[in-house]
């Protein structure tokens, strides 16, 4: 029997690290060299364009066009930032959408903290959304009335996404419960609704909201375009969220249903007190992923001409002075969307790790 040799000592050091992680064998080394070459070829020019040679502030597009070294013209964004943030909202009243934006952030922050996950959170949301509505519309408390057509910019994107999710979520719970109901009629109505909405592109629903929905209403009754688009987004989001909630409902072990029934609880109590709290908790990570999708999807309202962040940028680009700075405009839009979506996705991953350690996850694993 030969003695077991001790493990060779691992020397921590940059050279060993490079050898282990980049140059472990020949194909790997070739790949690394190729990747480094491509990085060297593309990253420095981009950094030069985007930062070093960029023009951050300029009174007009002239200095951008006459610059000797081609650099990004971020002056376009600086110059138009009010328009990008608030659209055509009356200039003197810009503090109102500004405060509304901050309120949105506050709502997101509160909802992200687990110790606020109580039924009272729903009330906080109701109050917050109502306050945002009052701020944006005005007409009371001495605020001047601002019609929907003048809302725009980033705040409109936040409104569409947040109100969309806030209203779609309760609807989706009803749909998910309905899809799992024993009553054949309820079940078929929910299945048809969910599959119908999920089977068609969002654009077709938005077109429907913009051109067909006015025909549905009796003569004289009009609903403005923003609200119609918002309804379409809510109906769309509800179908997707319903499938996520249904996944959560299916993951609840049968013993929980049986125990609730054995206690003699009614359907409403069983659902509200036993099943939903557990089902929603385990569906939070996929729910957040769906929220990310919906946040991105609000950009589609551009196609029916609603003035969200993206259309505000596009409109600013149409000004003769700023034609040709599309790359800067869309990179900026990408950055804004990325910040929101990346924050949500990191949050959802953190939550997933947390919940994997929690009591619910352990209970589920045991069954």
């Amino acid at each position, binding site marked *: 029997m030969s003695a077991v040799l001790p493990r060779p000592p691992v020397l921590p050091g940059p050279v060993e690290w490079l050898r282990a992680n980049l140059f472990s064998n020949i194909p790997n080394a070739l790949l690394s060299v190729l990747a480094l070459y491509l990085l060297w070829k593309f990253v420095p020019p981009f950094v030069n364009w985007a930062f070093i040679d960029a023009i951050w502030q300029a009174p007009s597009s002239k200095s951008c066009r006459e610059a000797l070294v081609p650099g990004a013209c971020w002056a376009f964004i600086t110059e138009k930032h009010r328009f990008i943030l608030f659209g055509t909202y009356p200039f003197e009243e810009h503090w109102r959408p500004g405060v509304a934006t901050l309120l949105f952030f506050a709502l997101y922050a509160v909802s992200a903290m687990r110790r606020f996950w109580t039924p009272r959170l729903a009330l906080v949301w109701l109050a917050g959304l109502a306050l945002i509505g009052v701020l944006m519309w005005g007409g009371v408390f001495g605020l001047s009335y601002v019609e929907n057509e003048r809302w725009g910019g980033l705040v409109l994107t936040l409104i569409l996404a947040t109100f969309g999710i806030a209203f779609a979520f309760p609807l989706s719970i009803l749909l998910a419960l309905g899809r799992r109901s024993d009553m054949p009629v309820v079940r078929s109505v929910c299945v048809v609704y969910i599959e119908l909405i999920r089977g068609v592109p969002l654009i077709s629903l938005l077109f429907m909201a913009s051109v067909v929905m006015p*025909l549905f209403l009796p003569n004289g009754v009009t609903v403005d375009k923003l609200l119609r688009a918002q309804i379409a987004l809510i109906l769309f989001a509800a179908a997707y969220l319903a499938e996520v909630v249904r996944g959560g409902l299916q993951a609840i072990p049968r013993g929980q249903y049986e125990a609730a029934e054995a206690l003699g609880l009614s359907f409403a109590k069983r659902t509200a007190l036993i099943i939903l709290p557990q089902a929603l908790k385990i569906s939070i990570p996929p729910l957040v992923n769906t929220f990310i999708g919906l946040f991105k999807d609000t*950009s589609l309202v551009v196609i029916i001409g609603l003035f969200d962040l993206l259309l505000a940028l596009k409109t600013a680009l149409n000004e003769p002075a700023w034609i040709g700075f599309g*790359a800067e405009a*869309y990179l900026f839009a990408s950055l804004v969307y990325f910040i929101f*979506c990346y924050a949500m996705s990191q949050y959802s991953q953190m939550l997933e790790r947390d919940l994997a350690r929690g009591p619910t996850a352990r209970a589920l694993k045991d069954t």
Partner: protein
Amino acid sequence: MDEGRHHVRAPAPLRPSASNSQKPRTRWSFNDPHVRALVYQAALIAAVAFVGWYFVSNTLRNLDERKIATGFAFLAREAGFEIGETSGFAYGAADTYLRALGIGLANTFRIAAVGVVLATILGTVLGLARLSRNWLIARLAAVYVEVMRNIPLLVQLFFWYTIISENLPGPKDALTPLPGLFLSNRGITFPVLHYDPAQWWLLAALLVGAVIAFLLVRWATRRQAATGEQFPAYSVGFGIMLGLPLLVLFAAGIPHEIHRPELSGFNFVGGAALTPEYAALLFGLVVYTAAFIAEIVRAGVLAVDRGQFEAAHALGLPRSRAMRLVVLPQALRVIVPPMTSQYLNLTKNSSLAVAIGYPDLVSIANTTLNQTGQAIEGIMIIMAVYLTISLSISAFMNWYNRRVALKGART
């Protein structure tokens, strides 16, 4: 998935039978769950019917007042608009709306089919790259995935379209990353094989080769099962499949002249070209969907237990066979269902073409409904087409899932 429903239903008979055993229930009571269910469902039917009737009656009255025609008679009328690209079909402004919509559908399929193939390739490469032991490659793939899937597709489409149509140089100073390939603000121009009817023989040869390869693999598998003797059926089959067309190409002297694009005046002649719209849409769809596919592939490979690799190696299977016979079939079971929904998403997302002016089905239906004013019919056509695609793909998925499901396992 039906577990939950079953056990909820199970205790229901207990209650009625307890009272039924003494005397049959004669009075209808709201406490009886069956009666309650009937009442609820009747109420739901009434509500749905009422809402439906309300919308339909309003719509009919509105259409009547605004003198908007109804029905699909407009499909046979002359469309009167030109379509930028027609996927190889003949079309003119004098053709009917029906034909225009057909062209739109063909354009949708042209972008979706190419997009699905390219996104699968790019996504698989990225997914495997993210699992690579090479730190740099894994990092780069991770950055790609995180960036691409957190930016809305529409923003990406606008970006690529701007880059192609505004920031690329004109045909005169077109970029040529590879000889014969030109990138300019007129789109992407590349060399193609000059068409000749005799080239159909190549396709025939390829098909024959495929059939031979298929039979060969089946024979080799059976022989191995019976005798244990092995035969390199895959490599030989692959060789036949590729070799046969090449043999036909050179031996039979089938014309294979390559058309290179050349600059003439202000544009290219010869070769084939992708319009800026098609190129931007294809690029955007592929780059965006690949990020999602990469995550699916990664999850699929990670889902296969390490022990499976090790067991396969312990059995003496070489790496490639362990992959093909042990790991891949198990990974595919995890990969295929979400992959199909990504393909569906790509197809549905191709409707964003309308934003950058690529004439897909939605874009043409939109033009049609603007011209005829028949919005309801236009949107019904869009929805019907996409629903048909979605439902047939989910039907196929269900069939596939039943086929690959673990035998005897509850799914």
